[in-house]
């Protein structure tokens, strides 16, 4: 089908731009219409026609008690962060590349919309979503902190590259703006000891904003930035300092230089250890017991561009054996 036919079929919901044709729905209903037109013409969204969520660019509601906000999926996270400050909220510390993404890209892309929470866990930054399924039906998940009402349907959106559902709005979990920041700088006799120290502190409840690490001569230096409530920061600093001596850690002096490459990867802890052993300086974000988002020369899941789904399968899982 020619692009002029498509343009005609999509009518005012379609915009021409130098990098191709865009569908620009302004509501879930319009997106449903776009999908119906594309289906009828055998065209996949994202190929001949890309999707613009530019119309969903507003901070729609702020819920001060639950520390949540309803945001359009087209909002760029750095802009959203600025909009949150007058409400004394923050999204927490996001990696530099994540900040350049829209809410939709952050949720649907390889970051999978995850953020760290105390005790070294990860949870989706979205507490609820409004999305449209590939067949045009709407998916609205419930605004509640946790649920046992069936499978978590937001997993059809998070990390799924928009292939099952397309998000239009999301209610996001925020944090109060930090009252205090502190950098704790420690050096350890080995990479393993340094990373053990980080994992132990995470398990204790310490939830760092970010960290920088590098092997300097025979020791591994770790610079951990803490942010939050005044006494919370003091507690987190204590957790780090408490764990350090048992692992041969001691206070370190000089600040580390930033990493040479800004490319971001999601890395497991063994991958972080390998990169540090190679002498890389790494910036670590979204630290959890699973691993971290790493800026610098580390190997892991590339976050700059959408990667193929794991194992190329229909869903990101390993099928161990076919039906008997």
């Amino acid at each position, binding site marked *: 089908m020619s692009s002029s036919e498509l343009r005609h079929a999509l009518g005012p919901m379609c915009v021409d731009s130098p990098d191709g044709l865009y569908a620009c729905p302004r509501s879930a209903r319009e997106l449903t219409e776009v999908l119906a037109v594309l289906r009828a013409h055998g065209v996949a969204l994202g190929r001949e026609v890309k999707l613009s969520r530019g119309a969903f660019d507003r901070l729609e509601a702020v819920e001060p*008690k*639950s*520390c949540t906000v309803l945001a359009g999926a087209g909002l760029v996270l750095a802009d959203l962060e600025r909009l949150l400050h007058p409400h004394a909220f923050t999204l927490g510390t996001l990696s530099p590349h994540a900040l350049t993404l829209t809410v939709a890209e952050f949720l649907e892309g*390889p970051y*999978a919309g995850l953020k760290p929470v*105390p*005790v070294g*866990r990860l949870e989706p930054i979205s*507490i609820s979503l409004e999305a449209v399924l590939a067949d045009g*039906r*709407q*998916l*609205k998940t*419930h*605004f*509640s*902190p*946790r*649920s*046992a*009402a*069936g*499978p*978590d*349907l937001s*997993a059809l*959106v*998070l*990390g799924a590259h928009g292939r099952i559902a397309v998000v239009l709005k999301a209610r996001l979990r925020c944090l109060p703006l930090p009252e205090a920041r502190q950098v704790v700088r420690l050096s350890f006799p080995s990479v393993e000891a340094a990373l*053990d120290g980080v994992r132990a502190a995470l*398990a*204790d*409840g310490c939830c760092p904003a970010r960290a920088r690490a590098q092997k300097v001569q025979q020791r591994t230096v770790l610079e951990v930035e803490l942010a*939050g409530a005044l*006494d*919370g920061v003091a*507690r987190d600093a*204590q*957790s780090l300092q*408490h764990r350090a001596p048992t692992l041969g850690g001691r206070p370190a002096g000089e600040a580390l230089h930033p990493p040479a490459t800004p490319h971001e990867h*999601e*890395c*497991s802890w063994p991958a972080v250890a390998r990169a540090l052993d190679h002498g890389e300086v790494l910036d670590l974000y979204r630290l959890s*017991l*699973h*691993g971290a988002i790493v800026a610098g020369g580390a190997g892991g*899941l590339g976050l700059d561009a959408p*990667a193929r*789904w*794991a194992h190329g399968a229909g*869903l*990101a*899982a*390993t*099928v*161990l*054996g*076919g*039906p*008997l």
Partner: protein
Amino acid sequence: MPPPPDLVVWPSTEEEVQAVIAVARRRKLPVIPYGAGSGVCGGTWATHGGVALDLKRLDRIGPVDATARTVDAEAGVMGETLERRLASEGWQLGHTPSSIYMSTVGGWLAARSAGQLSSRWGKIEDMVLSVRAVLGTGERLETPERPFSGPDVAQLLIGSEGTLCAFTRARLRVFPLPEGRAFHGYDFKTVADGLEAIRVMFRAGLRPSVVRLYDPFDTAIVGDKPPHVSTTSPSQAPALSRELLPALFRVLAPQTLGRPGLMNRATHLLRKSRLVLVFEGEAARAADEDAAARTLCQRLGAVSLGPQPAEKWLASRYDVSYRMSKVFEGGAFADTFEVAAPWERVYEVYQKVREAVAAHAFVLCHFSHAYLEGCSLYFSFVGAAPLGQERERYESIWRIALSAAQSAGANVSHHHGVGLLKARALQESLGEGRHALKMLKDFFDPDGIMNPGKLGL
């Protein structure tokens, strides 16, 4: 009585689970995955007959990987066995549902269970790194661990209550046994003050493992009795509570529970709301968080009761679940239901459910499983009805209560799941989203053999 299955099978390996599902597929037989049967929503009822797939022989626990802080446990491992085994090596999962003696890892995953310590360690879905399962298609599947690209299939299977797959194994996050614990109880002037204290506590970054706020009547029941350590099973309970209490209850129930409106109004005389907190983990940090919580609670007008109420709670935390049988023996009915809501809605959900149920049953509530964004509300209701009308009254209370909770902003369930009991409510609450659930069903179980009817599928 729940409808029985036609057949019960006890596979011991994942391959055997796969073989059972393969036969069931060929013969179009329903398969009902079965853990320990403690689910309270009818999830294991064989409403269409078929095969009860009892997974308790999948009971192997792997070694703890101390560096990665993980353990592999098969689906049929009983909760208590797992925590004891981990504790013997200095670790804990931190998942201690009240049903720990009678629930399995697979059942936890299937119903998105929450343990009593969830405010710190998370619900079961927060503890899972990956799962292994046999799908309704007959395929075996292992979900990847982070980092991976694509949707998190584990989160699509967890909570599916046997309707998509049978879980066979999970890799779970473990933590070192807590070095220290700090206990504290507080009395607040009102429920609303207590809720505000929890909210502010989480906003300040504090993460107690146990947070339980009892409403005034529940507070009166929790009482000030000294702590005791329970070592006896309910069947060995003293004759006093086994025989005398039910007898007393049988006499009193028709008079008191027959007039729930009166009793509910009487609770307006009670105002005090008790909060129980336990902090645990690295000892100095637990003590420090406890001190910070104390300052905060006292700022909100709470009276500190010292460690005793929380110690008492810990000592008897598994007893409570058995008390309900006394009510039944007394000729009345009782049940519990739980939901969750964001902080903006929690108090309203509490009030609306109380108002809705007040005329029909006596109702009490406690708030637990707290988050930065909200918490869970756990209602208990006790009622009586003229002979022959008990079931009708009981079912109408359920409908009224759940509908009041949902219209005030609560979800369908925080941790008991859906099963048959809440299936309709789930389907209604999903709106068009129910097609997404159906899509999963068609993808993972195209023949519709897995636990038919549950979740409304």
